[in-house]
């Protein structure tokens, strides 16, 4: 079984400032890692994913995340945020074992509030 901890429930940030959302996971097996964004009254949209190879993953809307196996972390970053980045962000982990169903386990979410 795996678990995900998002260390910050809310992150206020000023427009054009950088932001980092922290995510740590635990798992006894190799994993896939994902970041999703959820805008108000919407479903979740995939921002980026780590599946193998490069540890620095680039996603949509200028976001990137770095996989750190030794620290079991997958922090999300953006160098300059916009008002439109105000949303809820979810980190998620899935084991690589097809027999286990590849179910996603989500973190508790981090609410990003971008201020003008």
């Amino acid at each position: 079984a795996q678990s995900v901890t998002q260390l910050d429930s809310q992150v206020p940030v000023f427009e054009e400032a950088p932001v980092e959302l922290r995510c740590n996971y635990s798992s006894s097996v190799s994993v896939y890692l994902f970041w999703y964004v959820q805008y108000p009254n919407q479903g979740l949209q995939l921002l980026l994913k780590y599946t193998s190879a490069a540890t620095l993953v680039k996603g949509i809307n200028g976001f990137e995340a770095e996989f750190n196996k030794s620290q079991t972390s997958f922090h999300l970053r953006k160098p300059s945020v916009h008002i439109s980045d105000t949303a809820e962000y979810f980190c998620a982990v899935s084991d690589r074992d097809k027999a286990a169903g590849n179910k996603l386990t989500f973190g508790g979410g981090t609410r990003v509030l971008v201020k003008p």
Partner: protein
Amino acid sequence: EADIYQTPRYLVIGTGKKITLECSQTMGHDKMYWYQQDPGMELHLIHYSYGVNSTEKGDLSSESTVSRIRTEHFPLTLESARPSHTSQYLCASRAGGGYGYTFGSGTRLTVV
């Protein structure tokens, strides 16, 4: 453009009513999932399916039931709705382990 569709988007119903939340996807994905999400809270898996005639309960106990008669269709049913069922219900599908989930826009259910 969404490839997974949920209807209705919003639903307000009275206690004791039977309801079915619809979820359809056009991507041919075998794996489909239902999550329950309270406002501002994390997502909890309540049901999933690996294919036609396959359904399993998720990590969070739910009084709802699901069916999977066709690959593209994964409806969720509440036989007798209660105020405690008030929540957002998100449907998702997946091609394979490394692909992540594609989510529908959700159904926000309010039971009065």
